[in-house]
């Protein structure tokens, strides 16, 4: 670490009061289902933390995951960028281009070898020698292997990186695979969603910042705190589901009264994600609240699951 400067100092400069900061820690602790005492421990750990280096690589993706990161309301990305993480490589956000960008990445990887967090969005096309996606003339596969080698852990952000996502949907023209099929010897955290909920991405990063270990994961490598329950479990339309009151069209009486969207194809009952609980964009809404069934976008293979408007049988 280059200077003695705590996160509290940095946040104070950023106009974030100690109280607001503690509140953030409490929110995060409760989101991640940690015991209340953890909030204080987190606050202390966060306050002392040096900025861990994050290398963010983008492969076959649409930049929706990065856009989602910037929408986080609990932990503004400007604070994240400036105060708590050192985002040392991110090709959508960084100033440097071309060779200068590649040199910045190599320097960070060297300096923080064994300690940096590798974040990946997008799938990796492995067919035909990786010609379907390169940058700086290097295939995604080679770049991922190189960057993973000295990473402390890897976070696969978005359904493409976590499970293959859209590029891997049938017929998978480019041989797209998820990170898990390539990186097998590092702790891997899957954060699926198309894109993931902004606060879930920043929550996972903040957890890393505090504990330097992955949170509790389920068998698909997803943090249980966010992916433990289904959308349906927490859906505000659940009473109508039980009463058998279903919207049959997007603009019928049921739709206007907020009845259950099951018959319009909602995949909430089989989708593990926190949309109904945390909601989106400053808790403004979530897909069901805005009248559209859940697409199931955080589940493996959801693109090939038979159609978004076909009711589950």
């Amino acid at each position, binding site marked *: 670490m280059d200077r003695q400067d705590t996160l509290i100092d940095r946040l104070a400069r950023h106009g974030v009061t100690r109280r607001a900061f503690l509140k953030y820690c409490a929110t995060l602790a409760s989101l991640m289902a940690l015991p209340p005492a953890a909030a204080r421990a987190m606050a202390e750990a966060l306050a002392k933390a040096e900025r861990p280096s994050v290398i963010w690589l983008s492969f076959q993706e649409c930049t929706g995951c990065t856009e989602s990161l910037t929408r986080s309301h609990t932990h503004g990305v400007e604070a994240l960028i400036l105060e708590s993480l050192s985002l040392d490589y991110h090709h959508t956000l960084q100033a*440097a281009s071309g*060779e200068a960008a590649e040199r910045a990445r190599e320097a960070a990887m060297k300096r923080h070898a064994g300690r940096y967090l590798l974040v990946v969005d997008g799938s990796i096309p492995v067919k035909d020698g990786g010609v379907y996606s390169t940058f*700086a003339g290097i295939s995604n596969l080679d770049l991922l292997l190189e960057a993973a080698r000295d990473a402390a852990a890897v976070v696969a952000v978005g359904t493409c990186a976590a499970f293959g996502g859209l590029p891997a949907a049938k017929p998978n*023209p480019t041989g797209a695979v998820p990170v898990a099929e390539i990186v097998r010897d590092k702790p891997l955290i899957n954060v699926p969603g198309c894109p993931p909920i902004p606060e879930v991405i920043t929550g996972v990063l903040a957890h890393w910042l505090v504990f330097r270990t992955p949170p509790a994961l389920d068998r698909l490598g997803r943090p249980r705190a966010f992916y433990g329950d289904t959308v349906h479990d927490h859906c505000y339309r659940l009473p109508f589901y039980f009463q058998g009151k279903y919207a049959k069209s997007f603009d019928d009486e049921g739709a206007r009264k907020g009845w259950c969207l099951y018959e319009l194809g909602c995949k909430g009952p089989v989708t593990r994600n926190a949309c109904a609980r945390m909601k989106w964009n400053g808790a*403004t809404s979530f*897909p069901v609240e805005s009248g*559209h069934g859940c697409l199931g976008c955080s589940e493996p293979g959801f693109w090939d699951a038979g159609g978004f408007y076909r009711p589950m049988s």
Partner: protein
Amino acid sequence: MSAPRQRVVVDPVTRIEGHLRIEAETDAEGRITRAYSAGTMVRGIELILQGRDPRDAWAYTQRICGVCTLVHGIASVRAVEAALGIAIPPNAQLIRNLMIAAQHVHDHVMHFYHLHALDWVDVVSALKADPGRTAELARSVSKWPKSTPGHFADMQRRLKGFVESGQLGIFANGYWGHPGYRLPPEANLMAVAHYIEALAWQRDVVKLHAVFGGKNPHPNLVVGGVPCAVSLEAEPRGRGPGFRGGRPATALDADGLQTVREAIRSMREFVDEVYLPDALAIAAHYKDWFRQGEGVGNFLCFGDFPGAGGMRIPAGAILDRDLATVHPVDLEAEGEIQEFVAHAWYAYRDGKERGLHPYRGETEFAYTGPRPPYEHLDVERDYSWIKSPRWKGRPMEVGPLARVLLLYARGHESARALVDASLRRLGLPLEALYSTMGRTAARALETKLFADAMPGWLDALTANIEAGDLRTFEERRWDPTTWPKRARGAGFMEAPRGALAHWVAIEDGRIAGYQTVVPSTWNAGPRDAAGREGPYEAALKGHRLADAKRPLEILRTIHSFDPCIACAVHVLDTEGGERVRVQA
């Protein structure tokens, strides 16, 4: 390569969406003589669409891009509606207009501050600024309430702490101190402060998308209208299983409309008081950039914002800067829009020299480039995953500049007034728009036009609802059994980066072919069979690089187009099944 020439490679071009590589040849003076634009990532989304339910297509195509996260969804539902002859209700039209305009405003502001500004703004120089004088400067261009010495001093302190920490993060290795940076320290500090403020602003204004579409990025849409029904009152849910307290029926109620109104207010305020003044203030220091970076001089729009009166982007083509003649454009005409693959990694059945209309589009991967890792592409042969679309054989620029010129040529009053007043302030003629900075200025100007149109659409929507018209969705033709055996149609819109269209062919209720021709394909595509460059390639020609190792000039012009490469690279096939072959 012949001896005295130098090859400059920028890969990855950062601060864009997607994977773009630029190779440029320079002469002995460091002037670019030829430039090559290469998209280096492909997913094959149109191949993936084959055989699926056309009503689902919007969700797949929306994932072409998460930055302009709405636009492919809109073009897709419009294509399917065109194919099936569905007319959507007026409320749905108004809601889509609001969502599209919000996309433009959000996208353009983020592009300016987070993707483009650092080409003009030297972050390190901001450390030398005097906060008091910065506040004076800021107040001389707008009445933004945050422009106080204390605020700028604060921003400077944060920046300083950041720089001194030795961990520069995303600012590491920028071309700081490059002789091309010409803003005074105070202007740099003002822009850096707004870079940070814009990050916070943008996540609030996307609430408009969240109300109508449930989330952003990737809000939901539906063929036939919009998914969110208007709810005037929630039905009591009763305290049975699953009860979680009182909640609205849908997000589109009185509170939701208030959220939308507030988002629009905030957008207009930020555009009027921060974005537009900053863009013009920065432009004033770089007037030489109003004289270079033109591109091809041909401009194309498909038009958008349907509905009665008010803001409406016209469709049409302008050739060779001739604003007196606006040519009509027909998306269905075989001879108008065609895609070429002469220098792209695809094969066509009847040879690589032909151009194909989207309804006849073909897809066959045919990678002939070097095996990665590689140093250089073979630019004499094929060098990109991006195709080369042409209109009546010509390369066309699409995007903000094309739209502003079209509006100007068509005599749109507020557009003319805004353009004239802004150019007058800068002391520049209309021709100055045909340039790198002209493109950047046009983007800021159209943002204001779109933001100003939004309250009118919201008022119309609220008036309809108050008058009892709640319709947001057209039920007829939702059920595939009501569809003709075969149908096809084109859906179009103006995306932030320019004219966008999707072509769909439906057979027996399934997608038989799907094609997208996308803004960044028009702008970023490689040479065609006749050797004509695409707009990026043409615009870079003649740029003189002050320092070939730090090609800031290339970034300026490329970023002025706001590249979206995931969009630009697409794979299509409207006629047959998938045919994938790799020859490398």
